[in-house]
């Protein structure tokens, strides 16, 4: 997803000062260089906080004492977005946020909250076009199986100081159990191996399995009722003989079930006696009938709405240009000015008067509308995610149609019953009761007769389950994941020889189960922590992160933001110089020649990142926060110096602290 950092902004508590703005270049390798304790390492926490992090990791004291709001301006395909969040004071974080969007936004000098972090996170999920279907297709209820969120994607864009050369942890925030588990679950989705469609099918499969269990249980219960019913019917047959409702031509013991049933049905169907229908019994039937008709009409209206919605969604799916794994829809313009200008020529479309009276006014109106339309052109396309809605509406349609059919069945039965009230006449109370009961029993039998229908339904569900299991085979997901990982590993393999690494030609393996890197040697795979040296760890981190982004960039609809922020990549090379500084208590002069091996190794890191940025043709941005000065990276193509914080110059201006 095209999502790059344009600016970071700090609003001071002291209103006499203007906000501090740090501008970054899009599609470039941006460097903030400077000494220790100048605020470089606060940049990642500031961006993370403004993108909705749970806690505020911006260092306390100096920075948080001086600033009231932190902000970040994001460049997206849908224009610029300023996301600002209030300094949390004594709390771990605050939900108060300010959002401003526009083609070119004007940074306000003061800020007042206009939204909250929850809403910002929802908007970011939507912007990234993340599917809203969760991974919990088995309905386990685990929080780690929730829908992928924008927050999960930060694992791919931040490499702070404690991660960049960490042999144990590869991804940002993957050192906590919750983040690790969630990241592992969403990884196949981010790699495009699990698509929203697969997720939807998985959910459908769970629903179908539930449905199958229900129908099978129904079938089971009908079979047992059937046996009970036969014995009851035998008793009723004898009673009917006793009452004289079955004449002598009927055998005392019926030869089989069908003969017995036909005999009993003939009693129910033939009018036996005069009717005794009370006003109340008719009224009850009429009331019930009216109620059923009302329900039927309500469901029918809902069904019409759902069908329309489903058709619209299907149409959107069909028309949307489908990239690898999600939809892109061309944004639609209203063009009100075009509507107005195409209205009746002789009448004003607005006031309805003759145009001769108001032609000038209409022209004014049209030109002002065209101006607005020109100014407000915002974006090329949107990434709609309505996978969950699509499945929900489909399921609602199915279940509502079933209810509708049920209602119709009940209504028809009731109508029949009402008719029968009118037609049939019972004189003898016992006969009346008997026939009433018999009628019920016959009805039950008739519902038993539908078991073939039920068997049919069970078969249909079984077929669908079988066909779904072929489409969503776990093996298929695994093979797709492994294909994507192979690609990433290949990309990393091409980057590694350009970095300072001991085994540049040994294949690298990204293992999702452990969220870790392994390096292959003859017969074994070595985890990063089994390989020594900070320089190796750093190189593998750099290579894999760049390879991941290269992979993400190849898919136009990948949700991962297209930037990478790295803090202190040179840390593994410069402890020597840092020690000199602490001994002499003076700044290390990084501008002095660094022609030793360490300097060369650091230059390689910058060059590898620059190569990835440059080959993306503006679609990828890197931001590096480092001690290393211009003499290390200055000559590298595509590098942009954001700012140099030395000799008293810092993230937070000194005067803010006075």
């Amino acid at each position, binding site marked *: 997803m095209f999502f790059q950092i344009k600016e970071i902004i700090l609003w001071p508590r002291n209103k006499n000062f203007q906000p501090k703005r740090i501008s970054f270049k899009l599609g470039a390798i941006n460097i903030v260089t400077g000494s220790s304790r100048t605020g470089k390492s606060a940049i990642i926490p500031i961006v993370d906080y403004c993108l909705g992090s749970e806690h505020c990791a911006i260092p306390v004291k100096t920075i948080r004492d001086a600033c009231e709001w932190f902000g970040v301006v994001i460049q997206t395909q*849908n*224009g610029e977005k300023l996301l600002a969040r209030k300094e949390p004071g004594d709390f771990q974080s605050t939900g108060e946020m300010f*959002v*401003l*969007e*526009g*083609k070119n936004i004007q940074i306000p000098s003061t800020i007042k909250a*206009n*939204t909250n972090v*929850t*809403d910002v996170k*929802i*908007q970011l*999920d*939507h912007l990234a076009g993340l599917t*809203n279907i969760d991974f919990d297709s088995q309905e386990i209820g685990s929080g780690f199986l929730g829908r992928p969120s924008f927050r999960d994607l930060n694992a791919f864009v931040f490499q702070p100081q404690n991660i960049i050369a960490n042999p144990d942890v590869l991804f940002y925030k993957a050192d906590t159990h919750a983040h690790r588990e969630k990241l592992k679950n969403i990884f196949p989705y981010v790699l495009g191996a699990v698509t929203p469609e697969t997720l939807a099918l998985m959910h459908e499969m769970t629903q179908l399995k539930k449905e199958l269990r229900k129908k099978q249980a129904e079938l089971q219960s009908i079979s047992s009722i059937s046996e009970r019913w036969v014995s009851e019917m035998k008793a009723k047959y004898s009673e009917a003989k006793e009452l004289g409702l079955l004449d002598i031509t009927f055998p005392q013991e019926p030869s089989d079930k069908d003969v017995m049933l036909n005999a009993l049905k003939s009693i129910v169907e033939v009018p036996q006696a005069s009717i005794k229908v009370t006003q109340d019994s008719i009224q009850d039937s009429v009331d019930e009938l009216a109620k059923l008709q009302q329900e039927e009409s309500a469901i029918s209206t809902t069904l019409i*709405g759902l069908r329309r*919605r489903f058709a*619209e*969604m299907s149409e*959107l799916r069909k028309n949307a240009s489908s990239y690898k794994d999600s939809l892109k*829809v061309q*944004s*639609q*313009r*209203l063009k*009100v000015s075009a*509507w107005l200008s195409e*209205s009746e020529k002789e009448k004003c*479309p*607005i*006031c*309805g008067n003759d145009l001769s009276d108001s032609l000038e*006014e*209409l022209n*004014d*109106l049209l030109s*002002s*509308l065209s*101006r*607005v*339309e020109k100014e*407000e*052109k*915002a*974006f090329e396309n*949107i990434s*709609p*995610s*309505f996978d*969950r*809605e*699509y499945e*929900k509406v489909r399921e609602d349609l199915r279940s509502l149609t079933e209810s509708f059919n049920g209602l119709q069945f009940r209504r028809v039965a009731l109508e029949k019953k009402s008719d029968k009230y009118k037609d049939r006449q019972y004189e003898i109370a016992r006969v009346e009761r008997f026939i009433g009961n018999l009628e019920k029993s016959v009805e039950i039998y008739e519902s038993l007769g539908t078991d073939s229908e039920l068997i049919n339904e069970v078969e249909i569900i079984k077929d669908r389950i079988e066909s779904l299991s072929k489409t969503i085979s776990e093996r298929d997901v695994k093979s797709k994941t492994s294909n994507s990982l192979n690609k990433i590993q290949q990309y990393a393999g091409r980057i590694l020889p350009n970095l300072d690494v001991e085994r540049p030609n040994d294949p690298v393996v990204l293992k999702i189960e452990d969220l870790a890197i392994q390096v292959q040697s003859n017969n074994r795979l070595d985890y990063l922590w089994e390989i020594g040296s900070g320089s190796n760890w750093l190189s593998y981190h750099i290579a894999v992160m760049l390879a991941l982004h290269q992979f993400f960039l190849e898919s136009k609809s990948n949700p991962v933001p297209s930037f990478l922020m790295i803090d202190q990549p040179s840390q593994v090379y410069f402890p020597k110089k840092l020690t000199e500084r602490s001994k002499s208590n003076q700044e290390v002069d990084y501008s002095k020649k660094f022609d030793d091996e360490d300097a060369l190794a650091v230059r390689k890191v910058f060059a590898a990142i620059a190569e990835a940025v440059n080959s993306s043709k503006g679609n990828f941005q890197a931001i590096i926060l480092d001690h290393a000065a211009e003499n290390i990276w200055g000559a590298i193509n595509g590098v942009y110096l954001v700012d140099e914080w030395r000799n008293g110059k810092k993230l937070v201006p000194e005067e803010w602290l006075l």
Partner: protein
Amino acid sequence: MSGLQREYKNLYNPALGSVILYKFAEGYGQIENKGTPLTLLYMVFPILFQEQIFSLLAKTQSSSGLRKFINKLYTKENSLSDITLSLPKRTEEFRNLTERSLRMALMTNLLVISAKDGVVFQNPKKKIKPASVKDVDELLKGSRKLGKWCAQLTLFEIGNLLGLEF
């Protein structure tokens, strides 16, 4: 005339429409006394006359704002993410009613147009009594609320939220 036809005629009539637009402009003007961009009026009926959107809008506090309201569509509970995507099509479907209602509102001086700026103003001298029919009253309140929410954002931001361009 069947009940459904009668309901259709009652709802889709320009007289009611003109009052709905008046209420929208009233809500819009509540913030900094701004004129309502004409373009926005075309969004009013497609939003208010969509059952699920309207019932959610009626339940959303006036202080929440359009962002919060649109975010509600995306929640699992409501699952209405697709609804905004059909708005452009619905705007076209409601175009006739919008224009007839606007014409009536201008003829009856409920709204005053400033052609140079492409905006309309609600005429404060015209007072609309609360509707005696509860459903209509809710519709008018909803329109006013929607107008107020729109005034808090730029057209760019509204377009971004609704996934369309003006």
